[in-house]
């Protein structure tokens, strides 16, 4: 059609595909990106990781197959999107979660999070986060029981200054929150914990603990251009700026000048916020879900910055230690609005002549 026309017209919204790119290939790329984090999860949480990932993937796939059968639609298992949802859901669950709970989460994620809306491409909210939210609201205790990684000496966990229960422990974010609330000061904690959040040798959700592994996978996706760079840049940038502002502007800084760069008593240092919790998982793998994020570049920035700021607001001001889940869902809900707000004016002005 366009061979004779040499005029270069760029229209960015709507995915106009110019290379052999299928849902399947994108999803396989994402799975490759998730592989380092999976390896880290298996290393730190051993059999828990294997069980959870297997159960989540299986239940997501089963739910998709059943829903398609009920609606007499073609089988869509081949695009691997259910597998990606399953892996991300498993990564966002506490390691010691019983298998049946993970199974419920997987069924809800695909059944209510995706297929109810009409399948891949029609869902408003990120399916994995829908499943996780459902679990968090349903089984509050199980969803906040954190296991110590298998590599940590059970008698003396690295992450906390005092001896803790050998089996479970607070996550870095939860711990810092309690420390701040009890005016213990976040400073001492900062140094002990930061290294562990980078390697992943801490309590937390299955696949979120290792910052290095997640960053590695994210980098792969960025290089492959499977994910749009604006999303991680926006999420991490906004979160960092927010955390740094809180940290720097805090009134109760320790008076000793040599320690001041790492010394806020009420806020943990900004880098810690990026490496802990689900921030990296969110920035590279959850917020980048092409279905539930805005289409235009400007919209992506708004979306990503919104996710970053909401996450930090919930972490710093809110009652929950971690806010990624709600931040993603809230911004997913705002996405249609953002898309309308960031409509690209077509070449030749707006229809109706007013442009």
């Amino acid at each position, binding site marked *: 059609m366009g061979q004779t026309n040499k005029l270069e017209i760029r229209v960015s919204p709507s995915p106009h595909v110019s290379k052999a790119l299928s849902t399947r290939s994108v999803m396989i790329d994402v799975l490759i990106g998730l592989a380092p984090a999976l390896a880290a999860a298996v290393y730190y949480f051993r059999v828990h990781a294997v069980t959870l990932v297997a159960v989540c993937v299986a239940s997501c796939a089963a739910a998709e197959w059943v829903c398609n059968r009920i609606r007499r639609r073609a089988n869509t298992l081949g695009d691997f999107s259910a597998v990606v949802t399953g892996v991300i859901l498993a990564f966002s669950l506490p390691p010691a979660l019983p298998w049946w709970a993970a199974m419920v989460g997987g069924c809800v994620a695909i059944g209510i999070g995706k297929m*109810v809306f009409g399948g891949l491409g029609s869902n408003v909210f990120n399916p994995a986060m829908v499943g996780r939210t459902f679990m968090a609201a349903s089984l509050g205790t199980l969803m906040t029981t954190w296991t110590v990684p298998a590599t940590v000496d059970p008698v003396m966990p690295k992450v906390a200054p005092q001896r803790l229960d050998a089996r479970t422990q607070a996550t870095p974010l939860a711990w810092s929150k309690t420390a701040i609330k009890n005016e213990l000061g976040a400073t001492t904690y900062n140094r002990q914990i930061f290294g562990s959040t980078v390697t992943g040798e801490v309590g937390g959700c299955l696949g979120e603990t290792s910052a290095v592994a997640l960053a590695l996978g994210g980098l792969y996706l960025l290089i492959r251009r499977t994910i749009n760079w604006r999303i991680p840049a926006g999420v991490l940038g906004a979160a960092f700026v927010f955390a740094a502002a809180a940290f720097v502007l805090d009134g109760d800084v320790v008076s000793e000048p040599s320690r001041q760069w790492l010394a806020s008593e009420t806020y943990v240092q900004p880098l810690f916020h990026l490496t802990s919790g689900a921030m990296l998982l969110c920035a590279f793998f959850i917020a980048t879900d092409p279905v539930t994020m805005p289409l235009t570049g400007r919209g992506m920035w708004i979306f990503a910055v919104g996710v970053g700021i909401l996450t930090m607001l919930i972490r710093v001001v809110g009652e929950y230690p971690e806010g990624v889940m709600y931040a993603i869902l809230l911004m997913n809900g705002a996405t249609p609005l953002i898309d309308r707000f960031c409509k690209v004016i077509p070449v030749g002005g707006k229809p109706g002549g007013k442009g």
Partner: protein
Amino acid sequence: MADMKQPACVSCGGAGLCGGKALATLKDGSWTTNPLAVQMLGICSALAVTNRLENSLVMGAALIFVCVGSNLIVSLLRKAIPTRIRMIVEVAVIATFVIVFDQFLKAFYWDMSKQLGPYVGLIITNCIVMGRAEAFALQNPPLLSMIDGLANGIGYAVILAIIGFFRELLGAGEVMGFRLLSDGWYTPNQLMILAPGAFFALGIVIAIFNHFKGPDPEEKKQ
């Protein structure tokens, strides 16, 4: 089943008091145009009181009572009510029945009355009752109007009972306060007791209901 236009009236043998429309009215109100699942009316109370089966049953009974009573009275008065103030008359009639039921609960079932809280009183503003009075009782004879009220009340009550049953079962492991799922192997799903669980349950019940009911004849034509 859906093709039967005028089923023979068994209760009073053909064209009796209700003009032979009793069964059709009964089926319409409780199934074809079910107030909750098809007309999407009365959602608020369906979400609010269904956390236990007992509450759901009482609420369903309350609605049946109010709907039948108000339909009867409005239908009896239908020729006397001036068109311009018919809404006020309808509300007055409905409110009377609601207050009677509310007082009855307070007098004999105080605990239940406390549990249902404001929702019994709110039946006054329930769209189902008002809608039936406005859409049916004003144009139809008393007996048929009562049947319509009964049908809609049953349609509402049955769906409420289904939602209440599953919410209590999954949320607390109990049915009517009797423990069915023991603590050992079932962890109660707190979400089902909370409001979001009601949305999920209602949505799923409506989906299943409409699956069995099939599309509306009007939609089929298109």
